[in-house]
């Protein structure tokens, strides 16, 4: 006390002491000291939630940097992105990382979702965690959809047109939904303003709340252990969250960072051509890969099935699928009872297969738009 801190460690200790005299951090300390992570052959899946969180943080940081130069109007959006990529120092890097990280985020999120599904981690007491997680899934897909339009290039413009068209197929309220999304009857500058507000304000606010609950629940309840291991009889090995698990997390996060850098340098995100609402749609409009399976499915549904529009049926189908996933903790009675649940296992396999096959078909199948 009183002497000048001579090393980093001493500095940290002094800072800690200063805070301790003012705030009671004992609860937090307990958590940090005692939080453990179960170690078993499925431990690897535990990393994907944190990875998704890390990528989200990257999105927030790069997003904040981008919005210092981006202009959300139909006249200036494209040029502002062009400006970022050509004139602003390292603008190309920030922009490419933001675009690539968005895709990586959705990918890790899907892995996280399905690993939780297949390990049945949604069962009691973690139903709320699952619900908030599904809400986050929807939020992040919407992040991706709204962000995709912001550069206001040709592909984005038409992809948004198609996407909002599909949203408009929801029975009864579809037209209203499409109008609210588009800020009008067509995709215009109003749509851009709206998507920008959604992307930088509404969704981040929602995420803060929902993610906060999601993370709080995870801290409160700890990590779920797959049923077979729980019921296996053996004592479950654990490792302390800090520093063991966290350091491993960091390895993953740093690797992701290296991958993002490589992608930005070798596969910079395209600027494209400025959107021209009066030009005809270019051939081969496609949504981003995480919407591809839905897009391709709609292509395969015949135009009319009986008296109902094929597209309406498709949209309803997706709604039912989403609802199923959302309610799975309540539908999977066997797991709730602690039994094996082969039905839900195979349903899960079916869903994953469907998504993979349809996505691949979307890229490979002949007969683009």
């Amino acid at each position, binding site marked *: 006390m009183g002497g000048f801190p001579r090393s980093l460690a001493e500095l940290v200790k002094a800072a800690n002491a200063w805070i301790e005299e003012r705030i009671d951090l004992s609860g937090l300390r307990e958590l940090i000291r005692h939080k453990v992570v179960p170690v078993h052959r499925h431990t690897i899946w535990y990393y994907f939630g944190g990875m998704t969180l890390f990528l989200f943080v990257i999105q927030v940081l790069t997003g904040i940097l981008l919005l*210092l130069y981006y202009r959300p109007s139909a006249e200036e959006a494209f040029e502002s992105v062009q400006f970022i990529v050509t004139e602003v120092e*390292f603008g190309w890097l920030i922009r490419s990382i933001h675009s690539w990280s968005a895709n990586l985020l959705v990918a890790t999120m899907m892995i996280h979702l399905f690993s939780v599904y297949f390990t049945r981690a949604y069962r009691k007491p973690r139903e709320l965690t699952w619900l908030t997680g599904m809400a986050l899934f929807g939020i992040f897909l919407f992040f991706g959809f709204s962000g995709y339009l912001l550069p206001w290039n040709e592909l984005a413009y038409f992809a948004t047109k198609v996407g909002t068209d599909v949203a408009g197929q929801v029975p009864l309220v579809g037209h209203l939904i499409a109008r609210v999304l588009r800020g009008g009857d067509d995709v215009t500058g109003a749509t851009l303003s709206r998507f920008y507000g959604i992307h930088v304000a509404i969704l981040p606010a929602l995420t803060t709340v929902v993610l906060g609950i999601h993370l709080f629940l995870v801290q409160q309840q700890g990590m779920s252990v797959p049923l077979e291991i729980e019921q296996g009889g053996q004592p479950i090995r654990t490792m302390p969250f800090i520093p063991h698990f966290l350091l491993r997390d960091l390895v993953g996060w740093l690797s992701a960072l290296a991958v993002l850098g490589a992608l930005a340098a070798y596969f910079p995100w395209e600027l494209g051509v400025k959107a021209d609402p009066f030009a005809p749609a270019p051939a081969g409009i496609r949504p981003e890969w995480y919407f591809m399976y839905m897009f391709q499915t709609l292509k395969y549904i015949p135009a009319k099935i009986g008296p109902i529009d094929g597209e309406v049926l498709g949209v309803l189908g997706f709604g039912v699928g989403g609802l199923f996933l959302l309610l799975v903790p309540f539908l999977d009675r066997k797991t709730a009872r602690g039994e094996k649940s082969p039905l839900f296992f195979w349903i899960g396999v079916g869903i994953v297969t469907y998504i993979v096959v349809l996505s691949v078909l979307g890229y490979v199948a002949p007969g683009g738009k």
Partner: protein
Amino acid sequence: MQTVTSSRRGFVNFLMGSGFGAMAVWMLYPVVRFLIPPKSGEPTIASVTLPWKPAEVKTNSGRIFKFGSQPGILVKTPAGELRAFAATCTHLNCTVQYREEKQDIWCACHNGIYDLNGKNVSGPPPRPLEGYKVNVKGDQVIVSKGA
């Protein structure tokens, strides 16, 4: 045993520390550079502020300016009115110029002639020149799309 372990530990800590330190600097540098605004100021293109004052532009003259990635031509008609058009000839994309002896806009490549409304009046050009809006705010001439 103790000494080896602790110096080994020291090395690992050092490696980690310097790795993270280097990373911090390496990543902070682009962010700081990004935050400092570039010389060019701001993106252009839906509108452009020309580098000439309205009074500087002589009557019955024209000059080329850059509008986004395309050339534009600013014209002051013999009557003193400022007009602006896309300067890309609609024939084969040469850059047009103002002709003061004929008081028209001319393309030197194949003798295409446009009147001071941008309309193609003679020669190969199939379409008129795209017109731009010209606004004068005090000492500034601002050209924007959408005449």
